[in-house]
């Protein structure tokens, strides 16, 4: 692996626009301010009856109509792109990161006893996203479990670096619905109340929902078009544990591999990393797996945080929301607290904090995600 790095003369990839809708409301500002205030958006569900499940809590976006005219993610995307309509470059390629997309439409059909459940829904979904985002490109779905957004950022950056596209819009979205909620409950993955990432008393994740987008383009084009650069994708590493369908690796070797690949591809040293936006779901095994990996890769403790105590685990959207927050953290020189953290677990002590922290300038950030099937993603941002 020693020689694996993206050649320096290759095209640089920058982010020039982004936004999100989360359980805190519309806009990055709402998410940023609430996370920094240490508020959680996780509350008792009223979207469907969850009384039979392991938990009745989740972080949902107000005002969405469940089993209404449009799917939950389409409602989120319509709200997200409202003010950006017509502003996305017409030649932008479209990548859509999601785990279950419009699964609520299938739910609705099954519950209604309809027979046309098997119609192809992926192409129709892509058409909807393309129409909402205003791209000519009909788009590609990228799914890598809860690492979907990280994988999509990697693929978008690769397309630009390899000259396949000058401009790519990455859209990520997933919703809280009975399908997904019952599934996570069956795997006993949910905290009864609110997720407490990296806490000594954590006992599971809380599901959340979100939609976000990041517009990536070559640095040369951003200069040509006089666009403000809000962040740079310096590198990435994708890997798989090759270990278990749902449980994280006990040795963390997959995430370690992804982290090392990411740093090598960015031609960066571990000491250059100012902070890590961790996956930090709040499950006992995930957070321990991550801490083992961070301990293996970094000589000194790095500031780490997770935003999932605030907005819950937004699945396919998680990595993109986290990337947008991390880019802003780099710009503003401070990182948010880990919401719901009371007492750090012994392996996370000195890494995580319940308070915001300032970070040094001219450093880089890592955003990590891990998903079912052992899929890991690490993205290096500058």
């Amino acid at each position, binding site marked *: 692996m020693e020689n694996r790095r993206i050649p320096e003369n290759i095209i640089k990839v920058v982010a020039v626009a982004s936004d999100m809708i989360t359980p805190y409301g519309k806009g990055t500002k709402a998410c940023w301010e609430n996370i920094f205030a240490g508020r959680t958006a996780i509350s008792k569900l009223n979207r469907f009856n969850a009384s039979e499940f392991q938990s009745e809590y989740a972080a949902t976006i107000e005002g969405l109509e469940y089993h209404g005219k449009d799917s939950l993610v389409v409602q989120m995307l319509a709200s997200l792109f409202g003010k950006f309509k017509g502003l996305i470059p017409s030649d932008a390629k479209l990548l859509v990161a999601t785990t279950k997309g419009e699964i609520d439409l299938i739910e609705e059909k099954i519950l209604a006893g309809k027979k046309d459940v098997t119609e192809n829904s*992926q192409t129709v979904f892509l058409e909807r996203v393309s129409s909402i985002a205003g791209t000519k490109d009909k788009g590609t779905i990228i799914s890598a479990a809860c690492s979907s957004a990280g994988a999509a950022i990697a*693929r978008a950056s690769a397309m630009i*670096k390899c000259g396949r596209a000058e401009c790519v819009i990455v859209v990520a979205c997933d919703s809280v619905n009975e*399908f997904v909620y019952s599934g996570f409950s069956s795997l006993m993955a949910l905290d009864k109340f609110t997720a407490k990432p990296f806490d000594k008393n954590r006992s599971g994740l809380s599901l959340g929902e979100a939609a976000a987008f990041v517009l990536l383009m070559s640095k040369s084009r951003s200069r040509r078009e006089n666009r403000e650069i809000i962040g740079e994708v310096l590198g990435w590493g994708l*890997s798989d544990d090759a270990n278990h*369908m749902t449980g994280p690796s006990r040795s963390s*070797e997959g995430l370690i591999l992804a982290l090392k690949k990411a740093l090598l591809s960015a031609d960066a040293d571990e000491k250059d990393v100012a902070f890590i936006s961790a996956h930090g779901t709040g499950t006992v095994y995930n957070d321990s797996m991550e801490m083992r990996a961070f301990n293996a890769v970094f000589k000194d403790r790095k500031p780490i945080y997770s935003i999932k105590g605030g907005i819950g685990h937004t699945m396919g959207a998680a990595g993109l929301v986290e990337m947008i927050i991390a880019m802003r953290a780099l710009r503003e020189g401070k990182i948010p607290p880990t919401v719901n953290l009371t007492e750090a677990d012994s392996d996370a002590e000195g890494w995580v904090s319940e308070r915001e922290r300032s970070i040094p300038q001219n450093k880089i950030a890592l955003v990590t995600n891990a998903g079912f*099937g052992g899929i890991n993603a690490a993205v290096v941002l500058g």
Partner: protein
Amino acid sequence: MMALCGIGWINKEEYMCVMKRLRVRYKDTTSFDGLSKKGIFSYPFKNFGRLDDVSKMVCYSTALALKDADESYSPDHKRDMGIIGTNTDGSLQSDIDYFKDYVDCDRKLSRGNLFIYTLPTSPLAEAAIHFGLQGPLLYMTAEKAKLPLVIRTAEDMLRLEESQSVLVGINNKDEAMYFVFKKDPEPESPVLCEISKAISVIEKEISLLEMAEEFLMIQKGKC
């Protein structure tokens, strides 16, 4: 050099290792499920019966592609090889199976063993676990040209040295085809053609079987 080094194809009646010119009609002697015990895998696939149909198809075709590429694997060896898959429906049938079962249980009981196959990456993850693939793993789909899409993604991965080799392919309900692509393959590694040549074949709007036969012709032309 980025090269095509192995192709595995299977449907519900026969299978093929294209470069080895191995074509076996199994339907008359064993069932689709029974194939798992007939030497397709180098070592026993633990609990193969619990896999959903798509996962079985993907695991068979990836095993055949690895065999075609002379890539050995074992339970105690993992490698930095990626896997990218595509299809038309994602995990639609598994989604339906899971949710109907949940509804049949009065929306009170959901089964984790059905839920885990409701991700389109689950078949790829099953293959990654059995074959020890620790490289990038993802599912992609688009309206058209699904196979060229994932092959070009594999090309990007190899060009940017994200992985030294990638398994990439497509499945549907009744057949699957996976390819092994490598960057700078070892001298002893079989090579069918460069990735650009492979893409020119894959971009033709022909069936997977016709594609396999065209690659077979390329292989014969080399000999």
